[in-house]
């Protein structure tokens, strides 16, 4: 399976999918760490892919989303954004609404 197909499967199989550097337990970059903290604060059940240990995904996700930086968040297969957008959506409550909607559904 090539990287694009892998990514498609990952975002279809996981409602909240975070592409990051490192793991949720041990983020390897400040922006990825912030993304994890935000999802935790929203009470989200989320999966992560460590792009540092998956170089094909690291390049593939940039192409897939047309977005050159990591982390990247997908909810229900929709690209939400990077850590700046996550922070904004967290602060204005929209991210919490999306997470709540998943739980209600």
């Amino acid at each position, binding site marked *: 399976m090539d990287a694009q197909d892998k990514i498609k499967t990952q975002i279809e199989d996981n409602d909240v999918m975070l592409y990051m550097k490192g793991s949720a337990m041990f983020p390897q970059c*400040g*922006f990825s760490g912030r993304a994890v903290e935000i999802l935790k604060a929203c009470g989200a059940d989320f999966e992560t892919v460590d792009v540092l240990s998956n170089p094909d995904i690291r390049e593939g996700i940039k192409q897939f989303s*047309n*977005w*050159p*930086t990591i982390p990247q968040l997908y909810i229900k297969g929709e*690209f*939400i*954004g*990077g*850590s*700046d*957008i996550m922070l*904004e959506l967290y602060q204005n409550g929209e991210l919490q609404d999306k997470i709540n909607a998943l739980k209600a559904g």
Partner: protein
Amino acid sequence: MVTPEDIKGWIEQGIDDCTVEIEGDGQHFYATVISPAFSGKNRVQQHQLVYQVLGDRMKEQIHALSMQTMSPEEHAARAG
């Protein structure tokens, strides 16, 4: 080393009528960009426009860039 002024210049060249403020230390940069080019675009599309303008510099020269983008209308609503 990349300076905040470099990044400001690159963004200003690539996006019409934009106002750019940048802070940074050569490693991490924080940009605020306001432009009518962002009107009618969602936040993802706005950031994509800035990334597109910076192109390969995002891979090679700029290690970390935080940004806030908004159209003049969004800026006015925020200030008001």
